[in-house]
């Protein structure tokens, strides 16, 4: 039984549309003559961490950007809580991989985090308190008056995450956010993300090419096939929470999933 034949259809949850944050419905994407995505049907439930993996060419970043409203689907649609997504919105926050380019270099850390608050019109007095709290949450207390270029990569990415949290979004879309960081920083940030997700019951869609990261973080892993990108498998990750870098990664279920997904990816990568 190959991974491709495992298509776990989740029975409609207890309270149907109320808990579906994002729904991608029969979506396809073509750029010019090139078919990037085909026939994507996906539901993201409230409070879940959904990981998207796939080889290069599977269009996972394009899919994420489609969910974020940065590009429009050529066919089908993306719905956020029942409403069609046509443009980026504050309720769907996006974390970019190239954090260096996504932060305003001329503003301090606090200035960056307060950007969504300014956009929303939050009164000045409140902004400082909110940004301090967020910095605390991402483990960056005492850096408010520092400029991004003075921080390490991992810290800059945390600033970006804090900034997205300042939006109080319904959904967090993350495009390989830890891809540019070293292994140790990556693991630390993975755990912090899980902690944040748990505290705030956040809905996260996480794109990564790192298979183990996807399994470690996710409640569900969606594997995309390449050329054109389509959903090849949707897998439940029933590992216990809270996750732990040592014990979870040695859990037999983790290893089994990793084994199957790796075989799948290698096969898809050959196509």
């Amino acid at each position: 039984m190959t991974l491709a034949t495992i298509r776990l259809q989740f029975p409609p949850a207890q309270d149907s549309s109320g808990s579906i944050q994002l729904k991608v419905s029969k979506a396809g994407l073509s750029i010019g003559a090139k078919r990037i995505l085909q026939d994507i049907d996906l539901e993201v439930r409230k409070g879940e961490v959904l990981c998207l993996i796939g080889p290069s060419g599977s269009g996972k970043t394009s899919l994420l950007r489609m969910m974020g409203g940065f590009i429009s689907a050529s066919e089908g649609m993306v719905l956020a809580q029942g409403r069609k997504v046509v443009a980026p919105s504050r309720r769907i926050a996006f974390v970019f991989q190239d954090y260096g380019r996504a932060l305003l270099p001329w503003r301090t850390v606090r200035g960056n985090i307060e950007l969504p608050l300014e956009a929303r019109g939050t009164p000045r007095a409140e902004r400082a308190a909110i940004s301090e709290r967020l910095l605390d949450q991402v483990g960056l207390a005492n850096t408010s008056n520092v400029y991004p270029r003075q921080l390490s990569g991992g810290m800059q990415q945390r600033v970006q995450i804090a900034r997205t949290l300042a939006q109080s979004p319904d959904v967090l879309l993350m495009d390989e956010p830890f891809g540019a960081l070293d292994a140790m920083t990556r693991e630390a940030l993975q755990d912090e993300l899980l902690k944040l997700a748990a505290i705030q019951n956040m809905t996260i869609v996480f794109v990564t090419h790192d298979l183990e990261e996807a399994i470690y973080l996710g409640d569900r892993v969606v594997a995309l096939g390449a050329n054109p990108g389509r959903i090849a498998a949707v897998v439940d990750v029933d590992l216990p929470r809270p996750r732990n870098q040592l014990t979870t990664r040695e859990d037999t279920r983790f290893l089994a999933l990793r084994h199957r997904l790796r075989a799948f990816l290698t096969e898809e990568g050959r196509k």
Partner: protein
Amino acid sequence: MRYAALRFIETTFLPAIVLTLWQFAWSKGWLPRLFLPAPSEIWISLTRMVQSGELLLAASVTGWRLLVGWLAASLLGIALGIAVGSSRIGHRLLSPTLEFIRPLPASALIPLLILAMGLTDQMIVAVIALGSLWPVLLGTVAGVRAVEPRLLEVAAGLEMSRSRVTTRIALPAALPDILAGLRLGLTLALVLCVVAEMITMSGGLGGQILLASRNFRAADLFAGIFAIGATGLVLDLCIGAVERWCFRWRRV
């Protein structure tokens, strides 16, 4: 300490030698006194002009014209530059025209403006404004177009209004290019001011040196040239200071 002293000597010894030889050659009568006065004469001229206030007067006349013209040009140039730079169609429509106008000598506008406005003060300010508009405009357009696209996506994600995106993101990001344009504009403004003053003989530093030349007062001429150079230097330093203040985040 010794190092600094050595550096100081190295940089000043050549000018000192030149001045000394110059003064010496002049006293021996080897130099054409018509246009090469002694350094001592220049110094006397300079102090005299400063004390009598005529230098300050001329400098303030020039400075005033400069300020008004350049400020107007800068505000207009930045506003237009933002408009053209942020609109893809606007840029495609206007950029060939802008590129064609770029190499045009700004002083070539003077005769036309004289026709339109006569040999007046307003004409001088208009020349300065029209001339220094281009570097500012072109610099702003370049800066706005070079804004990191990722930041624009961030702004879109925050549903920022167009005006907010311009003031909070585009302007700060384009600031290096805008300041470079402002600097060029200021240099050009001084040049145009001096030329226009020479043509209209209407006071100011430019008018003064031409007058000195016509009356064969070489020492006054040199003093005036020095004053103009000093003015340019001071203006440049001012903009340099503004630049440093704007980019203090770069030097942490």
